[in-house]
């Protein structure tokens, strides 16, 4: 882990809610603005996360592959004295492994979630090929979930359309809390 670079994000709280930044009045309707960390996976596939749950971006993560684990698991990573899972969102959405054994993602985005069994804060990470981007979205951007994968309703709490891209907003409690068969 000594060769691993860490970049801190601004997320502080483990609460899986968006921090709405205020309201702008447009005619009689209220436009609420929020931030989302958007990750890209596969080809033009996106997912968003609340900044509150994105903790740290690890470049060149060192992974310990787990034999016979779920197909979307890239491995376990040591992080601040813990072992945390690193998942591959593309494999999860495609319902089969889309990465090669022994390959390592460029980045691991560490996120917080609440362990349902203990109620305690816990941590997991997503393997990413590129850095996440932070975008501003409004409630007017809300749209329906993509229909290509039946998993989205189980892990996403909402969805937005941003510059032509459909971005499901993922609930990390659901993403990291249980096995996705």
């Amino acid at each position, binding site marked *: 882990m000594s060769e691993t670079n860490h970049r801190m994000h601004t997320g502080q709280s483990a609460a899986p809610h968006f921090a709405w930044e205020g309201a702008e009045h447009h005619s009689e309707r209220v436009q609420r603005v929020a931030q989302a960390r958007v990750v890209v996976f596969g080809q033009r596939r996106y997912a968003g996360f609340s900044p509150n749950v994105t903790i740290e971006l690890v470049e060149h993560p060192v992974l310990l592959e*787990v*034999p*016979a*684990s*779920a197909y979307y*698991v890239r491995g*376990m990573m040591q992080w601040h004295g813990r072992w945390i*899972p690193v998942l591959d969102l593309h494999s999860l959405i495609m319902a089969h492994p889309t990465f090669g054994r022994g390959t390592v993602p460029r980045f691991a985005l560490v996120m917080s979630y609440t362990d349902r069994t203990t109620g305690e804060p816990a941590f997991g990470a997503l393997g990413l090929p590129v850095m996440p981007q932070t975008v501003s979205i409004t409630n007017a951007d809300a749209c329906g979930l993509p229909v290509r994968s039946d998993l989205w309703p189980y892990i996403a709490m909402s969805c937005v359309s941003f510059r032509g891209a459909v971005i499901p907003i993922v609930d990390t409690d659901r993403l*990291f809390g249980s096995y996705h*068969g």
Partner: protein
Amino acid sequence: MEVQGIVHDGLSALPVLADGSAAGSAAAQLPAAGSVLQEGGWLRGNCVALVTGTVQLLVPQHDVVHTGYLQTGEAVAGALAVSEELLLLPAVPQDCFVYTAFADAPAVNWCWNDVRVLIDLHVQLHPLPNVVLAPHTPLTAVVTLPDGSHAFYTRAAQLSRFVRQQAG
């Protein structure tokens, strides 16, 4: 690697301690013979590390009833080997020259790249989270061994069951 073909009858033939010291010095501190205690997220007792490729598995010593070395080219009845994904290999690789038999099926000889007996091991168990565990996953935790290497904790019966299921 050429092996002399000496079959050791029992794990006492491999007196390697977790801290590298002589086997006798830690004997007085051992838990009851062969027992492994799990308490407060820690594991203590005599364990066996089984190595296949880059993967290291850790099982309680009492799960293992026999170990031995294969002579080059020697065929052993009931011998099998697994890949790093814990899938049954079609043939036992030449470099898997140490074999063990598990208590749940003593007639089967599992061949490994290396086998180490770790006496009075005391390591922290880091449970694998639910999201990692498929229903069939035989591994339960990650541990860091005294030499700094990492291993996955399991029970021999779980491993046997998984390999049998995957082999159909």
